[in-house]
């Protein structure tokens, strides 16, 4: 018998674990208004404020569009209100149209057209309330674990991450994949020094080549800039926690994906397959952006391992915090969901992995995470930088 939970069935058949109305700004210009609308509309209306400007180079803009659409299409979203100032190069109508492809309602609102910020907050709140009222009819129904896309992330890593928290989350990924689900992990710079281990596990040559190419690109970017990655990777915090080199950090990081074959690799914020086994996503190492990429790809629940004690969450998907550091578990218990430091104290990885998997199913079933209870809702979109665009041109 496989594991089940109860979730919200969307018109396209996918299953959400939360039933939120998303208020999605197309640029930084209306991000604070989006937040104000959400704050005045109750706990089920959530904003995704971000820092992208009103115009970006084409490739960068396309990525932002993919994220905004993907976030609105996440099955945790029951309905969306796409907010624009009205001067953005991104077309709010096109984002809303993209979101409705998944079958959920999506509306747009222009702050310039409704007559400024006060009018926008007032009208936005009314429309969010209407969308919420319509979505309240949704009832949880039984769903299979195989319908879950589980995104795993690490941030604020220390030496216990690779020893305890990451292998425990990896064991949970193995259990979910055994039950037919999808697990995904990312942060390509943190594959450097461990890519040969992942490459050996790819099920086909195309995935293997893509993985090695993406790692090369991230490493070449450091070379193109003539910089030494050591200043930033491992971070000063990682180093204080005992991680010496990027190779060491990477070898400890990749174990959070478990031990199953690598079935594919998608781009940042590209759709992730349901029932797809272990799939990688090419993202930067910045954890908040990386989490958002996976949620835009369809992940309903995230597990986030942290040795040093990150508190970060997300507006639309529950983030389960797992620490392998006994001191962090004691000091920051109110921000942590699963204690994997049992492993450092002699417990088995399999036992901690089962607790992570049980927590995943409970959270999918509606149990609030520490970050949700405290409304910790970090959101950031990765912006393709000018030097990355230049590197793409050099590569041709």
């Amino acid at each position, binding site marked *: 018998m496989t594991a089940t939970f109860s979730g919200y069935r969307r018109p396209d058949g996918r299953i959400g674990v939360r039933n939120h109305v998303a208020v999605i700004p197309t640029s930084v210009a209306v991000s604070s208004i989006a937040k104000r609308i959400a704050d005045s509309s109750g706990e089920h209306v959530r904003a995704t404020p971000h820092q992208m400007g009103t115009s970006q180079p084409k490739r960068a803009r396309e990525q932002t569009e993919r994220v905004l659409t993907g976030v609105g299409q996440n099955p945790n979203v029951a309905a969306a209100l796409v907010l624009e100032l009205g001067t953005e190069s991104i077309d709010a109508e096109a984002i809303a149209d993209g979101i409705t492809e998944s079958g959920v309602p999506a509306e747009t609102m222009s702050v310039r057209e409704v007559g400024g910020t006060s009018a926008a907050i007032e009208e936005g709140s009314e429309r969010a309330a209407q969308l919420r009222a319509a979505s309240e009819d949704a009832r949880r129904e039984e769903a299979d674990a195989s319908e879950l896309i589980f995104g795993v992330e690490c941030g604020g890593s220390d030496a216990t991450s690779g020893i305890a928290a990451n292998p425990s989350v990896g064991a949970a990924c193995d259990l979910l994949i055994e039950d037919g689900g999808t697990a995904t992990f990312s942060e390509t710079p943190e594959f450097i020094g461990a890519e040969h281990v992942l490459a050996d596990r790819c099920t086909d040559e195309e995935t293997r080549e893509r993985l090695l190419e993406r790692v090369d690109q991230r*490493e070449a970017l450091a070379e193109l800039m003539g910089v030494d990655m050591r200043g930033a990777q491992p971070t000063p915090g990682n180093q204080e926690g005992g991680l010496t080199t*990027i190779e060491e950090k990477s070898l400890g990081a990749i174990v959070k994906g478990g031990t199953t074959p690598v079935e594919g690799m998608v781009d940042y914020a590209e759709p992730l397959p349901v029932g797809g086994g272990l799939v990688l996503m090419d993202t930067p190492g910045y954890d908040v952006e990386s989490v958002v990429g996976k949620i835009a790809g369809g992940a309903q629940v995230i597990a986030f391992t942290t040795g040093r004690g990150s508190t970060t969450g997300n507006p639309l998907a529950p983030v389960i915090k797992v620490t392998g550091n006994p001191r962090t578990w004691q000091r920051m218990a109110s921000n942590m969901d699963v204690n994997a430091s049992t*492993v450092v104290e*002699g417990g*088995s990885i399999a036992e901690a992995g089962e607790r992570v998997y049980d927590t995943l199913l409970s959270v999918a079933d509606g149990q609030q995470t520490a970050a949700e209870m405290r409304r910790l809702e970090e959101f950031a979109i990765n912006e393709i930088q000018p030097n990355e665009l230049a590197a793409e041109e050099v590569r041709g």
Partner: protein
Amino acid sequence: MKGEVLGDGDALLMHAGDNVATALEDLEPGDTIGDELTITSDVPFGHKLALEAIDEGGDVVKYGEVIGAASEAIAAGEWVHTHNCESKRGRGDLAAQEVSNA
């Protein structure tokens, strides 16, 4: 736990071929791990200690994989970190040096 606990829960060996282990407590000079290894410097919780002497330029091995090179000779029982072990990867500075030396 996946690795092998050394001594009286003092350190963790992740893989049989490793030449470093991870401290499970704050270790001090004079502490011993098992019968043969004496700690020669402070090694904080989570940090690495050398299980054997490593020559300058020699591989530092954890998880059964090379995690970097010794930037100076390291004695058994010594703290291994950024002061005596450096990455071999993502070294744009070295690539830049090669270009300027060419």
